[in-house]
């Protein structure tokens, strides 16, 4: 019963929060709503018994990703409202609505649900369930999904470096004035050389 | 000289490659000498060729992709040898005819040499893939020649020429691949060797579709009605040399394809399709001849007449007897020489006056008697006067086709009437009557360069008209062998009945 109540609370709140994210004109509002929505999502994970995933969601998304957004926001002018021109304002809603409709029809039809079967029921078949979710995840992650895990790790490293390089290039002056300052720099060097 | 065929194919290409480093001013001399050597080589091939032997000679076989049976496989028989000689002759004469202050002369020479390689390659290939490669490659230099040296709407004409023929030959490629697949299914090994394919017996249904696929490629090249409209555009815009090569050699690839592929590989379908081909060809003969009559532009008359004559060649191919088939192979040569010469002649007057419209001329015979005489000779050859080259082929084709259809022969035979109508009308409008255009009074008669080009053609026209035996003999032998092969290969009784094998012995 609590599960049901929790599900509906989480469901309603995520939907509302994400709608705010999508519709809001203010970046800060949108970001805040997104972060809140992420927290609510982690609630689903706990509900589903994926404790480790829920924790990761909180740490990575709500913590790291949102922090990244927040920091990057410092580069943009976040106080102003975002002005967007919409040529076909209704188009997005029509398409989105259609998409939602299709999903609802698809998933509410019993035929789909019956066709979904577990191909590799890891937890049950190997009796992992006994230790709790975090241990199970660890076991699977470092055995069956070891290679993807390592690849993901490398990827994260690469992404981190890339992020630093892209964002951190010539941090000390504005890129828009880049050419002008380049010239000044050159001039200075030339003068120095001449001296 | 075991590999004379390879030398024939690749000598112009290598020479063309070297042509890039030749000095701009000596480019023409270089091109002429290369083409002359090539012609001598092809004549040497004729000397070595054993006319009594009907089969493939000087064959070379080098496996290239052996898993799929693709090989470098060339050979020559009576059907192809003379077309090769004609191709090299036409290239040489074309080079000689080039105006020495043509812009980008070096590019022209190199294009022509590459074109020569592809032309010779097409007629000598015995491997379907090799054939296809040369077939498609031949488009490229021609596209460039039309596109770079052509008239005002040259790009349109060149692109149309390229895309139209390319679309057809892609369908043909599908047919070739399907054929190889069927061969693999039947025999367990992959082979693109034509001589292997000749032995394969296919069902009616397979033959039907394969014939259509080949037809798409060949018919557009011929060009058969109603796929002919690229040709007048191409001729109208192409420079003289382009028109000459196009009419003399490139069109023959189509009819040659029918002889080399459709007939022997798909005998039953060929017989089955004969009424269809006949209908198209007859429309082609009569309709385009009438369209030719309506033209105002001299070159277009000749272009349409080309189409009309190709119709005669087509019905000869599908006559299914030695007279008709041999005649049509001979007619390929004679049409090449005659229409080539006619395009040269139109080029001469175009070079002098800058126009091709007949209304601008009139009375040219008074001003340029030698020109008019040579034009007259070619005109008579074109309308198929006995003792000129045009008659032998046309007579044999009509004779052979008579066995297939009497009405068809009478309709096709009307070419001797309507052919002379448009040709004589052209001659009258341009050459007879008083000199109507004052500008034409000062026109110079043929100069020595033009005579060098035209005199050999005139001699050929007369020589092969009076004494066609040296050429007709080998053609006849190979054609008879082809028909025997077709009859052995045919499956239905009606096909065997339609194919008439000569009573005389075939070696």
């Amino acid at each position, binding site marked *: 019963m609590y599960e049901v109540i929790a599900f509906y609370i989480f469901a309603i709140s995520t939907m509302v929060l994400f709608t705010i994210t999508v519709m809001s004109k203010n970046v800060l509002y949108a970001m805040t709503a997104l972060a809140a929505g992420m927290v609510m999502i982690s609630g689903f994970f706990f509900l589903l018994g994926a404790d480790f995933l829920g924790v990761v969601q909180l740490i990575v998304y709500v913590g790291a990703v949102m922090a990244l957004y927040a920091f990057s926001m410092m580069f943009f002018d976040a106080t102003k409202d975002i002005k967007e021109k919409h040529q076909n304002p209704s188009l997005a809603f029509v398409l989105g609505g259609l998409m939602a409709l299709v999903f609802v029809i698809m998933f509410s039809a019993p035929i789909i649900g019956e066709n979904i079967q577990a191909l590799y029921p890891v937890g049950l078949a190997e009796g992992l369930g006994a230790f709790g979710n975090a241990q199970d995840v660890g076991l699977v992650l470092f055995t069956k999904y070891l290679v993807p895990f390592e690849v993901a790790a490398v990827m994260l490293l690469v992404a981190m470096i890339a992020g630093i390089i892209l964002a951190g290039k010539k941090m000390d002056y504005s890129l828009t004035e880049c050419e002008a300052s380049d010239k000044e720099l050159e001039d200075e060097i030339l003068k120095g050389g001449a001296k | 000289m075991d590999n004379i065929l390879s030398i024939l194919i690749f000598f112009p290409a290598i020479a063309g490659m070297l042509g890039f480093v030749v000095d701009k001013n000596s480019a023409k001399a270089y091109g002429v000498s290369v083409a002359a050597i090539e012609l001598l080589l092809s004549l040497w091939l004729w000397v070595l060729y054993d006319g009594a032997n009907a089969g493939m000679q000087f064959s070379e076989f080098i496996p290239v992709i052996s898993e799929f049976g693709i090989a470098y496989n060339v050979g020559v028989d009576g059907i192809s040898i003379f077309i090769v000689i004609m191709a090299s002759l036409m290239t040489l004469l074309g080079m000689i005819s080039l105006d020495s202050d043509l812009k980008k002369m070096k590019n022209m020479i190199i294009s022509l040499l590459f074109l020569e390689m592809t032309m010779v390659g097409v007629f000598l290939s015995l491997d379907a893939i090799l054939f296809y490669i040369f077939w498609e490659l031949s488009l490229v230099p021609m596209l460039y020649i039309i596109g770079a040296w052509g008239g005002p709407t040259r790009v349109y004409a060149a692109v149309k020429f390229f895309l139209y023929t390319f679309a057809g030959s892609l369908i043909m490629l599908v047919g070739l691949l399907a054929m190889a697949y069927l061969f693999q299914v039947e025999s367990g090994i992959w082979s693109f060797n034509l001589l292997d394919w000749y032995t394969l017996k296919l069902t009616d249904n397979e033959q039907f579709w394969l014939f259509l696929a080949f037809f798409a490629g060949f018919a557009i090249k011929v060009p058969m009605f109603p796929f002919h409209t690229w040709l007048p555009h191409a001729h109208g815009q192409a420079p003289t040399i382009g028109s000459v090569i196009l009419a003399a050699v490139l069109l023959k690839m189509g009819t040659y394809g029918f002889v080399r592929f459709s007939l022997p590989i798909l005998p039953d379908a060929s017989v089955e399709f004969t009424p269809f081909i006949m209908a198209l060809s007859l429309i082609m003969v009569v309709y385009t001849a009438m369209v030719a009559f309506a033209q105002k532009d001299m070159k277009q008359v000749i272009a349409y007449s080309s189409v009309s004559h190709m119709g005669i060649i087509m019905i000869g191919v599908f006559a299914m007897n030695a007279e008709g088939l041999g005649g049509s192979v001979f007619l390929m040569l004679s049409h090449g020489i005659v229409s080539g010469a006619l395009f040269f002649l139109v080029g001469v007057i175009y070079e002098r006056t800058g126009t091709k419209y007949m209304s601008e001329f009139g009375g040219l015979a008074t001003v340029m008697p030698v020109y008019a005489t040579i034009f007259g000779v070619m005109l008579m050859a074109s309308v198929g*006067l*006995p003792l000129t080259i045009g008659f032998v082929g046309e007579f044999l084709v009509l004779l052979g086709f008579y066995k297939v259809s009497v009405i068809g022969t009478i309709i096709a035979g*009307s070419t001797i009437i309507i052919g002379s109508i448009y040709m004589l009308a052209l001659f009258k409008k341009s050459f007879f009557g008083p000199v109507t255009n004052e500008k034409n009074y000062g026109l110079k008669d043929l100069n020595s360069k033009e005579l060098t080009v035209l005199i050999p053609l005139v001699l050929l026209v007369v020589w092969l008209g009076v004494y066609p035996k040296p050429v007709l003999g080998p053609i006849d032998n190979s054609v008879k062998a082809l028909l025997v092969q077709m009859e052995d290969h045919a499956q239905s009784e009606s096909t065997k009945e339609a194919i008439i094998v000569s009573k005389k012995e075939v070696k």
Partner: protein
Amino acid sequence: MESLVYVALFAPFVGSLFAGLFFARSPKTHLVGIVASGLLALSFIASLMLAIHVAEFGAVHVTLMDWINAGDLSIPFGFLVDEVSVTMMVVVTLVSTVVHIYSIGYMDHDKGYNRFFSYLSAFVFSMLILVMSDNFAGLFIGWEGVGVCSWLLIGFWYHKADRPFEENPSISPSWAANEAFIMNRVADLGMLVGIFLIYWNIGSLQYDVVFEALPNLKDGILVAIAIALFIGAMGKSAQFPLHTWLTDAMEGPTPVSALIHAATMVTAGVFLVIRANPLFSLDAVAGVSFFIASLGAFVAFYAASMALSARDIKRIVALSTLSQLGYMFAAAGLGAYWIALFHLAAHAFFKALLFLGAGNVMHAMDDELDIFKMGGMKKVMRGSYIYMGIASVALAGLPFFAGFYSKDAIIETAFNDGSFIIWGILVITAGMTAFYSFRQVFFTFHGDERYKALGFHPHDMYKYVLVAMAPLAALAISFGWFMEDFREFITRNLPDYEMSHHTHHWAWLLGLLVIILAVTGIVIAYKKYAGTGKEAWKRDEVFEQSFIYRLVANQYYVPKFYDEFIVKPYTIASEKFWAIDKAVVDGSVDLIAKAFYKSGDVSRGMQNGNLSSYLNWMGAGALLLVVAAAISAFIG
């Protein structure tokens, strides 16, 4: 004997090459004319020797070399000199020699003098191939060869401009040349079909093989062959309805008209029928033969009627040629081949003479052709007057002249055959012939000197030209005297034609009837046209407006009909086809190309560079995929 055959055949060819290759561009020189004439004389002598040889030892058959060998077909360059061909050879070379010599004088002032001899000799060469060949393909070579030479010679004065039909019914030499060539080609198609029929049913084109195999063929095929070959003959011999080119061919120089369009080429059709007599005398093709005879009789009358009103001196002669060709076909169709050949030879002599005489008149009158503008010229042109008189008498068929024997024999044949309608037509035509040929003579040489008012100063031809014409005149008079010898000679090869007793009985009466008619015609012509002073001829404007006169003067409107119902529709159809070609055939191809271009142009709007709109497109695509997934999930 072989060498003689080759000498006879190739001497004119050598003459043609001599004139054509070495002197084509050099100014006129009499050397060319003399050499060409000399070579022709050589050819004539060789032919004559061959004739003697044939008379003594029989036919000569030589094969020069192979021509076409393909499949089972084998055509050699073979030449057969037998009684029939040697007769033709002698006639052709004799007339040609005279015409060549004549041309030296006639073409004296023409710039194209050398060219003319080249063409003329080439024509004789082709004609000799035609008559000497031993197979149908060889015949066809000559057949087409004379066609081309005729084209070249009719259009000899190619530089003349076109004039409207009303001014000059032949429009221009080049137009007339093209007309002749194309009309002949129509007939040649028939000939070709005949050759194909022969080949596929017999397997050879050699005369001897073919004629031997003919009786074994089915009737239908025989009739088809006969019809096809006769269509060929109709074109060359200008039989109705392919006759209009012959009168227009008079645009060529007069020696050409004399040689080609009177004596030799136009008789090729008759020659073909005579040559193929084993075919045409078969019972199975009796219908075709009778048709030939009937058509011949019809053409004889038809042409003669047109000649009655013609004003153009050459046209009159041309129409009389047409009429006489009709006689020949009538004889050949009725099976009297040797009589046809005899008339052919006799006609060649007197008609060539007549033409050359007309040429003299033209030459004197600065190429004026209208006989209304002549008159009383016998004083200034005595030689020509005599020659034309002789020729006209021969043509009219007065006793003891060549035409009398041959024409009378034909009329007798028709009577003997029981074809009284043909007979009647031929008899009436004989009267008309006498009238119009003497109308011409009287118009030209008698009556008032109308030319003086128009400022002409006529003078007779060179003496040597008149001398050269003498052999023709002699033969026009005397050829008929050798009728029995000729019959004996020729019937060794051709079937004899015997008159029945009944006919023999009536023969003198028939002859008398024809003579009376002819004399009547001449007398009427004399009364009407030969008077001077008060009795002089005057134009009868009222009569010229009458329907019959106009019908005849306009050649029964046949040229108009051709122009209106063949030439114009053909031209219009060609133009229409061209329009269709551009709009429909080419248009549909371009339409495909345009469709691609258009679709590209339309879809280019998607690539506006705005990521947001790309995202919209992507979203729509994603939605589509989801829908597709949903559908496939529900279905599958």
